[in-house]
């Protein structure tokens, strides 16, 4: 049979997810942070599809579909926010965006 252990997929997914998380933390460019987030979404999606395959159940794929839609919406709004912020502050350094404090 052409099978690959589920564990491999899980480890791959974990590695990608962690890389995404590290990206969110170490990069100050919000665009890259966003990309890292997308990476994390992907890692999660990979797990969904893998389990869907293993169990022979379509629900996992449906979920991935929804995640994609929401991610698309999130990116649209998020990028719009970045554009708006850039317009007002002429910088998109994430460490300068802490006006919510206090």
């Amino acid at each position: 049979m052409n099978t690959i252990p589920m564990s491999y997929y899980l480890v791959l997914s974990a590695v990608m997810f962690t890389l995404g998380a590290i990206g969110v933390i170490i990069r100050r460019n919000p665009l890259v942070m966003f990309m890292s987030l997308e990476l994390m979404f992907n890692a999660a999606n990979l797990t969904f599809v893998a389990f869907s395959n293993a169990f022979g159940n379509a629900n996992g794929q449906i979920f991935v579909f929804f995640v994609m839609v929401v991610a698309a919406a999130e990116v649209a709004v998020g990028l719009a926010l970045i554009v708006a912020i850039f317009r007002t502050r002429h910088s998109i350094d994430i460490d300068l965006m802490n006006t919510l404090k206090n």
Partner: protein
Amino acid sequence: MPVITLQLVIFITVAALAIASALGMLFSRNTVYSALLLVFNFTTVAFLYFMMGAPFIGLAQITVYAGAIMVLFLFVIMLLGTEQIARIEQLSAQSVAAVLLGLVIITEAVVVFLLRNPTSLVVTSGGDVVSVNEIGGLLYSQYLLPFEITSFILLVAVVGAIILTKQEKPAGKAVEGEVKK
């Protein structure tokens, strides 16, 4: 250890490519390179989807993620002109901590998933495990309501994006008034 098959070799190669491209995205100075590397990463993942017999998701991955979303990213990068942000991102304590934590988590994941209690589940490669028909059927019957809600979410996102990025017309009416005079 499972037998080394062609499938496995292909999987490991693709996985290595995915991780490499992710790493590249992370550490690339140029945002444009980051974006392109991410596109590559998405493609490798799409490949894995195909391998797992999920062509619908794989195609969606390529069209939506690699196609639409990343193009959007590139547009924004071009629009803002920040592709060459040359600011040196210092290696702060926070970054070090993040990398270390990341390594810890990866190690933990390996320990948990591979060594401690490896699951007996397997992923079958090739062949349609779940057909596109089935997905479509589910989407328009059981998941009809969430499906409709997603459409609403998208609508809201579109409207929101437009409002957020709309340029305020500075004193447009006053100008009109002057013209009339």
